[in-house]
């Protein structure tokens, strides 16, 4: 399989100039990269007169120093930009847009799916991912999904209640209910090795 072709196919198109997108993203949380730096920045969208901005919440120190507190979001074709109030503009990659859930219960996962159609949930601190497979109506959990050196088992359950109770030791924390992710998750990571 041509991996590069696969990456292109898996890249999700996003138009941040669409009125619906601006309305939907207003107040939501976002993880993104500036320039080609590998360190993720965390922030929250806000809008002024229908224009999207990001309030920067956290990043490693050199990125926080570079980003400042507020960034104006722009888009040229498929390329996103982030501009500081003093006019300095960066290339930006939006990685994930999400709601936050604190120590969620099974009903919180179900509510996010039923209300917003969200089927992907991510506990960033420990790289635990929960996905709802709509076609088979199954809930899956993968521990250490994103870690570069370790990919945990994916285990499937009939219900989210069962998943939560059998994995209670890794479920506590601040979860992301992901409505947008730049890339589709690869179902078979081992192909890349």
């Amino acid at each position, binding site marked *: 399989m041509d991996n590069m072709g696969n990456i292109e196919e898996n890249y999700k198109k996003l138009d941040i100039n669409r009125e619906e997108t601006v309305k939907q993203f207003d107040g939501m949380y976002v*993880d993104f990269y500036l320039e080609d730096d*590998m*360190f*993720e*920045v*965390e922030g929250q969208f*806000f809008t*002024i007169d229908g224009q999207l*901005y990001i309030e920067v*919440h*956290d*990043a*490693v*120190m050199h*990125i*926080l*120093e570079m980003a*400042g*507190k*507020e960034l*104006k979001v722009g888009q040229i074709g498929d390329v996103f930009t982030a501009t*500081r*109030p*003093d006019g*300095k503009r960066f290339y930006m990659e939006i990685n994930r847009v999400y709601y936050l859930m604190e120590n969620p219960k099974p009903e919180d996962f179900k509510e996010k799916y039923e209300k917003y159609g969200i089927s992907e949930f991510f506990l*960033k*601190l*420990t*790289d635990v991912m929960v996905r709802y497979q709509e076609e088979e109506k199954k809930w*899956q959990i*993968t521990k*250490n999904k*994103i*870690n*570069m*050196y*370790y*990919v*945990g*088992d*994916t*285990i*499937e*359950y*009939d219900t989210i209640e*069962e998943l939560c109770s*059998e994995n209670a030791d890794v479920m506590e924390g601040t979860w992301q209910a992901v409505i947008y992710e730049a890339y589709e998750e690869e*179902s*078979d*990571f*081992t192909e890349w*090795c």
Partner: protein
Amino acid sequence: MGKIVIESGTIDFEPVGIKKGCGKCPSGCRTVCQRKNVVKFDLVGGDMDDFEVVPIVHDYGSFRNPRPEKEEK
């Protein structure tokens, strides 16, 4: 019926992004700590007690509260 393992994990290193090492780091990279584990810094207990991380956030201005424009000469 309980659970089905549908994908097996691959371990080359011990995972480092679990609860320690990365701490509250927002980067999501997990590699700095990986390097740290490989190098194995010899820190003696108490060595870092006085160390404090002070984030530097420059004030580049604000879109919400823009500075008043200077009067043109």
